[in-house]
């Protein structure tokens, strides 16, 4: 009976199939990793908390993905620390007087990782694909109102239906990566670019391996090294647990890692490690209001809430001093951002004056203002919201914190921002970019999660896109003034998410660029 049953349970074919599965597992575990590691040790291993979700830069808005694609692909233009725009793959560019056309002269002698020539026709292919609705590019709107592209010798011309002043700045961003035509074969995508590193392999959720592009020519002013990266290879390992990531860094298993906020403070005091905090993140955290709901329709009430916020405490306690207070609706270092000017427009910490404003609006100890503090979870932010709740209590505002996971939060806020009755909501959010034009995506109706304000602001936001130079700067300052004096936005801190890296002291030359891009061109690793 036993043998009969065994025969039924595991017929030969099933036994063989099972054996194959087990052997495949064993061989992938024993041979796959072991052999690869022993034969060819990487020059640099970087541990990150999450993996890229897509290595097609025209199909993702995810920072962790764009950090990788930014190493594989270059951009037509580049940006210096002061926000000035410089040549990239395009050696020069001109804008038509009406602002509705841009011409880019591509450099000679550019090659893609697969050896194919990168010229104006290749750049046209990339731009056309980026704005093609079929591509489903989440960043397509940021490319502007492109109507047509054309090529004449080595010049790419991009026509727009309306002036779009942020266009050159956008072309420097990690969202504007230029792909080589050979990347796309039918519906398949293989990341082939002109960037400093070539993709070797990607095991989803586990490891991305890149190798240096020996033919690389650098045009990014943030980078010193003019040629190929100094390191031969980079591996990005995914280690989700912060404790495990730090253990890997401390044990030397990886040379760089995304530290947790708590660990960063310890690492910065340890002479064996270096901590990097991006100062060019373009990230700005703000408080916003469901201003359609009484009494938040009263600017004085919004101001009072803003005046209760002790941002220095958020910086020093919640974020361990690793961020800065920031006074504009857009991040410091971006074009047209004038922190001193914004300070003069906005509110400052003054709980006594805040109480007086609330009393004027009819709220006090006998009639406390009740609000919901609607937030999403992020390291540092959670502690900040707790301190914020105390700050609001100090001026007599009872804030109930409602915390949601990020996707649910933004879904929820879409509805909250349309509400005109019920409990008013005070909420926090962050955004990033390389140009103040991200104000348009946020505040121009309907706006991001329906946070648009009204026709006056819409007009100003449209105007800044049509202007250039000093006139545009002035218009952006007007927008800052409108948002801050009316207290639609209360700027909090900058940056605020994914802006930290740590390395052992063996690693030198690492930099973080705009939008927390990772720059490895200058990196050397001591043995």
């Amino acid at each position, binding site marked *: 009976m036993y043998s009969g049953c065994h025969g039924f349970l595991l017929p030969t074919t099933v036994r063989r199939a099972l054996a194959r599965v087990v052997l495949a597992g064993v061989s992938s575990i024993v041979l796959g*990793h072991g052999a690869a590691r022993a034969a060819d040790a990487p020059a640099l291993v970087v541990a990150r908390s999450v993996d890229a979700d897509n290595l097609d830069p025209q199909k993702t808005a995810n920072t962790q993905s764009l950090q990788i694609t930014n190493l594989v692909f270059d951009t037509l233009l580049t940006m210096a620390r002061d926000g000035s725009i410089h040549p990239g793959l395009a050696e020069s560019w001109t804008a038509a007087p009406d602002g509705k056309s841009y011409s880019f002269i591509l450099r000679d002698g550019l090659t893609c990782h697969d050896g194919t020539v990168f010229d104006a026709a290749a750049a046209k292919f990339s731009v056309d694909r980026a704005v093609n609705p079929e591509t489903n590019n989440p960043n397509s709107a940021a490319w502007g109102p492109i109507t047509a592209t054309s090529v004449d010798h080595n010049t790419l011309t991009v026509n727009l239906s309306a002036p779009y002043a942020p266009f050159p700045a956008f072309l420097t961003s990690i969202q504007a990566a230029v792909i080589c035509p050979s990347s796309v074969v039918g519906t398949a995508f293989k990341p082939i670019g002109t960037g400093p590193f070539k993709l070797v392999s990607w095991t*989803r959720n586990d490891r991305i391996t890149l190798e240096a592009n020996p033919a690389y020519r650098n045009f990014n002013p943030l980078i010193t090294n003019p040629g190929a990266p100094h390191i031969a290879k980079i591996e990005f390992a995914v280690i989700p647990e912060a404790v495990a990531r730090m253990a890997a860094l401390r044990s030397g298993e990886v040379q760089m890692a995304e530290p947790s906020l708590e660990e960063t403070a310890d690492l910065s005091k340890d002479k064996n490690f270096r901590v990097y905090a991006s100062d060019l993140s373009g990230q700005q955290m703000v408080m916003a209001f469901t201003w359609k709901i009484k009494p938040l329709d009263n600017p004085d009430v919004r101001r009072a809430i803003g005046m209760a916020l002790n941002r220095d405490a958020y910086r020093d306690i919640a974020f361990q001093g690793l961020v800065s207070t920031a006074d504009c609706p857009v991040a410091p270092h971006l074009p047209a951002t004038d922190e001193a000017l914004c300070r003069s427009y906005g509110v400052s910490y003054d709980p006594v004056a805040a109480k007086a404003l609330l009393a004027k609006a009819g709220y006090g100890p006998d009639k406390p203002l009740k609000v919901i503090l609607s937030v999403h979870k992020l390291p540092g932010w959670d502690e900040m919201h707790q301190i914020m709740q105390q700050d609001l209590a100090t001026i007599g505002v009872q804030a109930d914190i409602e915390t949601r996971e990020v*996707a649910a939060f933004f879904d929820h806020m879409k509805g909250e921002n349309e509400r005109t009755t019920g409990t008013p909501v005070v909420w926090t959010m962050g955004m*990033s970019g390389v140009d103040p034009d991200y104000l348009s995506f946020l505040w121009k109706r309907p706006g991001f999660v329906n946070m648009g304000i009204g026709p006056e602001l819409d007009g100003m936001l449209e105007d800044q896109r049509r202007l250039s130079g000093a006139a545009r700067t002035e218009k952006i300052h007007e927008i800052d003034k409108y948002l801050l004096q009316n207290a639609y936005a209360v700027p909090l801190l900058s940056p605020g998410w994914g802006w930290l890296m740590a390395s052992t002291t063996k690693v030198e030359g690492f930099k973080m660029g705009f939008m927390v891009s990772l720059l490895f061109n200058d990196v050397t690793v001591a043995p």
Partner: protein
Amino acid sequence: MLGAIARRLAASAATLIAVIILAGLLIHIVPGDPVTAMMAQSVTATPEVMAEMRRHLGLDLPVWQQVGLYLFHVVQGDLGLTIRGNEPVLTLLIQRLPNTFMLAVSGLGVALAIGLPLGFVAALNRNGLGDSVVMLIAVLGVSIPSFWLGLVLLQVFSLDLGWLPVAGSGWRNMILPALTLGVTYSALVARMTRSTVIEILGEDYVRTARARGLREWQVLSIHVLRPALINIVTVVGLVFAYLMGGQVIIENVFSWNGIGRLAIQAMLQRDYPLIQGFIIVFASSVVLVSVVLDILYRILDPRLSRP
């Protein structure tokens, strides 16, 4: 016996179809949609762009239609494409299944190696010192959160002693997660073994065997161990099923590239097809184990196969 097994397989297939439908329905109750999650880091994604993306992914269809289409494809072996990256779900799961399988087998091996002897020792020393010590260990094993134990093991063996790597999917990386899982589940195995053996030791046929003058080892190996196997096999099967689907956190702690870690990522990213694929794989492993257990019962206890 074959008829019984055929009926069991048919019932299992019905269970799996119910799981597919439920997974398809339940997933939509979770607040937040995948496109919002994808665009959470991008303020430049306009409502038009997001609507187009929803349409492209088929998320604009009514839920019943999405679930119906999903069921239709799954029964043909097509688990769909991931929302993030547009990759075949089945391929991603199959690529990681060997890693998860190996870790489950290793964890089970550790759990049995620790739990079985401890359970026997406790039962044979009932209410004695050995029993108390074993039960204390069992309580600790059940009470200690596996992720905490994993982090402690990482700290000690990887960081302090430097014996084992922190992250990866090589064979040396398997030691700590297998130990973590094994210790956690060994408590369950030990408790089950103890109670089963105690129960059997009180049976008339054991007393009879002893009265016949059999040596103690003969009594234990012939008259106690074999009947105990039926219950132990149940625990082994359940533990294995849990390990196949329930090692999600441990895979994350040790950066083990299995389907559990893939599932966590998919949940965070609202990648519905991948989450559904994981649920189906997990449910399938539980159903498969339960079928195998049913058959093993019949082998171990022939009375079950008698008409």
